[in-house]
């Protein structure tokens, strides 16, 4: 069906859409984007446990994070060691300008090229050019913040502001000059911490050799505190070289010394869009989904034995282990998720059982239970049921890992109607033994959930303080008292449990960390994809992005946990076998191709 004809629309709406068809973006729109792009780092392909509300934070939030670090509990601060702005850009200097609404922002440096010994002068001006004689700007301190980003390295300094509401009267056509002020932020185990400390101790602005991007950002509200009436950014590059006869050691550096990982698995398969479903509960089988999961195209569920030999495959867009030998497989019909069907595939015998009804999701407990999200062709409801029961509940199980290890508790996003991925809906627990739905005080978006062996659940919740602030947190819920207040870890994504009561947590701008809810201690351990075995060994498929290796001591210990590193840059995994003697992980290539590796761990 091609749908109703365009002529079915009222004329006024057609006119409206035709008007949009001729819309031309502002000429500086991409410039504005690139200022933010170069001031913010790309996220990496984090495992599902890091994805969630935190991952949805925009570049502005990332900058706020930097500002927080500069003044927060980590190392770092700002010094008023700025340079004076000259009346005019000196010969040989650089000046860049951006105009946004009623304001003009200018950024300049006194030269384009420096040596590592040379003081560097940077300043910016903000000028009100609107129709009023003057306006009052409410802003952080300082009004403009500067970033220095090393183009070929990992060092980045700046962004520190005090989040207060200062006032400045901006008179028409009078430039307000903001000299550069040093700021930097780091955690104690930051691989560049030594450099940042040495750099901050120097009262003069000097930089190591290389090309650096200078970014200035400013946000303010006009005539009232709060908001973003003014939001401007600009950047330029400067080049820093070693003075004649100098050696690189003259510049303080603290680049990490990478420890090369020693372990590499054996490639057992390659294909398009391969995603690890998981090991069967007894570790005998491994299920992998190959395909994009769309209603068009061919998707396969491929099954391997523990040694990596493929033992079979069947069509399906998703799968989940219901019990050690039964894999529940979801298939789409012609109507996509609205006509999905589920079969129970017995791996040993190859027999398939159909499940009556149409479903759009499956989540097995591994202990014999199966949650089925019910397909609704109207698209207006989201409900689920348990296999073998007629009771229908609102919402759907969080995936993956919605069941606790005992197969009693199922974590639910209690959606009423249709929800977007980030829309907050109540987090609830279904007691599969009694059929009772137990509410929690928290709301979640589309997120993952993790259970420990000692009866706790960690998941990402939205706006945990109920203030309307879209800040996420990892919430640790006690299954004995799920309605009680959880232990919250603001700004982090949830992750798997360690056997000693600690949890892996993470967020996109920082590395994975170990969190101890009892003490509140957070220790960064790795940059990369992380998996935890039942005995608590952390495996990291190293993130090779940008040539960075992270700071993990590979094949050793980090934060008191045994850790092993695996060569390669990972998309998915690593996923430990239940016995902790095998790891499977998938490495992405271009155009969606994926290699699947299996590693026997001594």
């Amino acid at each position: 069906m091609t749908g109703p004809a365009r002529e079915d629309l009222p004329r006024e709406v057609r006119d409206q859409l035709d008007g949009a068809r001729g819309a031309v973006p502002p000429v500086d729109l991409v410039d504005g984007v690139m200022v933010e792009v170069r001031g913010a780092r790309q996220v990496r392909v984090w495992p599902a446990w890091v994805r969630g509300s935190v991952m949805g934070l925009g570049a502005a939030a990332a900058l706020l994070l930097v500002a927080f670090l500069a003044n927060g509990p980590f190392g770092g601060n700002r010094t008023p060691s700025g340079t004076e702005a000259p009346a005019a850009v000196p010969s040989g200097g650089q000046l860049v300008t951006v105009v946004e609404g009623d304001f003009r922002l200018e950024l300049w440096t006194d030269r384009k090229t420096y040596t590592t010994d040379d003081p560097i002068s940077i300043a910016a001006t903000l000028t009100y050019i609107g129709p009023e004689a003057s306006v009052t700007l409410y802003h952080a301190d300082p009004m403009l913040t500067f970033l220095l980003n090393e183009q070929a390295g990992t060092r980045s300094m700046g962004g520190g502001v005090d989040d207060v509401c200062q006032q400045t009267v901006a008179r028409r056509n009078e430039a307000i000059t903001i000299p550069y002020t040093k700021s930097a932020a780091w955690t104690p185990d930051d691989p560049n911490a030594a450099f940042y400390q040495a750099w901050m101790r120097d009262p003069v602005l000097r930089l190591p050799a290389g090309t650096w991007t200078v970014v200035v950002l400013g946000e303010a509200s006009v005539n009232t505190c709060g908001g973003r009436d003014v939001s401007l950014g600009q950047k330029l590059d400067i080049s820093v070289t070693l003075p004649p006869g100098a050696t690189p050691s003259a510049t303080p550096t603290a680049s990490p010394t990478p420890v090369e990982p020693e372990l590499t698995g054996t490639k057992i398969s390659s294909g398009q869009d391969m995603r690890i479903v998981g090991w069967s509960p007894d570790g005998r089988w491994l299920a992998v989904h190959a395909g994009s999961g769309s209603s068009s195209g061919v998707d396969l569920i491929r099954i391997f034995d523990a040694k990596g030999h493929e033992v079979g495959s069947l069509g399906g867009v998703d799968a989940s282990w219901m019990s050690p030998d039964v894999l529940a497989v979801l298939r789409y019909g012609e109507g996509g998720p609205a006509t999905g069907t589920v079969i129970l595939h017995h791996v040993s015998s190859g027999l398939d059982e159909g499940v009556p009804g149409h479903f759009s999701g499956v989540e097995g407990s591994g202990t014999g239970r199966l949650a089925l999200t019910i397909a609704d062709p109207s698209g207006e409801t989201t409900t689920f049921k348990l296999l073998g029961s007629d009771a229908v509940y609102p919402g759907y199980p969080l995936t993956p890992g919605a069941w606790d290890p005992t197969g009693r508790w199922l974590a639910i996003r209690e959606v009423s109607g249709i929800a977007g991925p980030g829309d907050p809906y109540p987090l609830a627990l279904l007691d599969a033994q009694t059929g009772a739905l137990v509410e929690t005080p928290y709301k979640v978006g589309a997120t993952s959930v993790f259970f420990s062996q000692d009866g706790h659940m960690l998941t990402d919740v939205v706006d945990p303080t109920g203030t309307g602030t879209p800040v996420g947190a990892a919430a640790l819920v006690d299954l004995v008292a799920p309605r009680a207040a959880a232990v919250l870890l603001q700004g982090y994504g949830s992750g798997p449990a360690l056997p000693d009561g600690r949890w892996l947590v993470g967020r996109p701008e920082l590395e994975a960390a170990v969190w101890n809810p009892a003490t509140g201690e957070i220790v960064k351990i790795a940059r990369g994809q992380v998996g935890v075995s039942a005995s608590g060994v952390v495996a990291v498929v190293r993130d090779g992005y940008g040539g960075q290796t992270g700071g993990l001591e590979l094949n050793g210990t980090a934060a008191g946990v045994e850790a092993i590193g695996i060569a390669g840059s990972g998309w998915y995994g690593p996923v430990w076998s239940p016995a902790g003697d095998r790891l499977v992980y998938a490495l992405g290539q271009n155009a969606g191709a994926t290699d699947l590796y299996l590693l026997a761990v001594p």
Partner: protein
Amino acid sequence: VTRARQGDSTAFEQLAMQHVTNLYRIATAMVGAADARDVTQETLVAAWRQLPRLRDDGRFEPWLRQICVNRCRNELRRRARHPETNNLLADAFETHRASSADPSALDRRLAVSDALAVLPPTQRAVVVLHYFVGLPLREVAGTLAIPEGTVKSRLGAALTQLRAAFPEGEA
């Protein structure tokens, strides 16, 4: 796309230049000219940050469009929660100013904007993707991650509401 995914900001800038016009037009159709810039900018910044997750370079354009539509829906939801920040009046005022004081243009724009505003974000997304972007219903379903049948029902509901708002405009 591959280079941008690996962190090459210059490559990403080229991609942004290539797609910015289409994104801006979708945003204009979805949320109006007053917020189209912000939505487009947020879309591209989000795309940069999320690009390493894109596993099929050939899907870049629909993936980018999906981000844009989601951003637009977020903006529409935000307006619904905070109607005082609705920019439709400002948008209409801009049209009025640009059309050199033609009162009928302002009235017409206000009426049209109001009519689109009464559509829920989900229905508006379906209308824009199908009639404005020109996507077949199956691709609309894929972009919005909803069944094709839902696309059809939402289109029908949207047309009913729009016809009620513009009875004289029916074809």
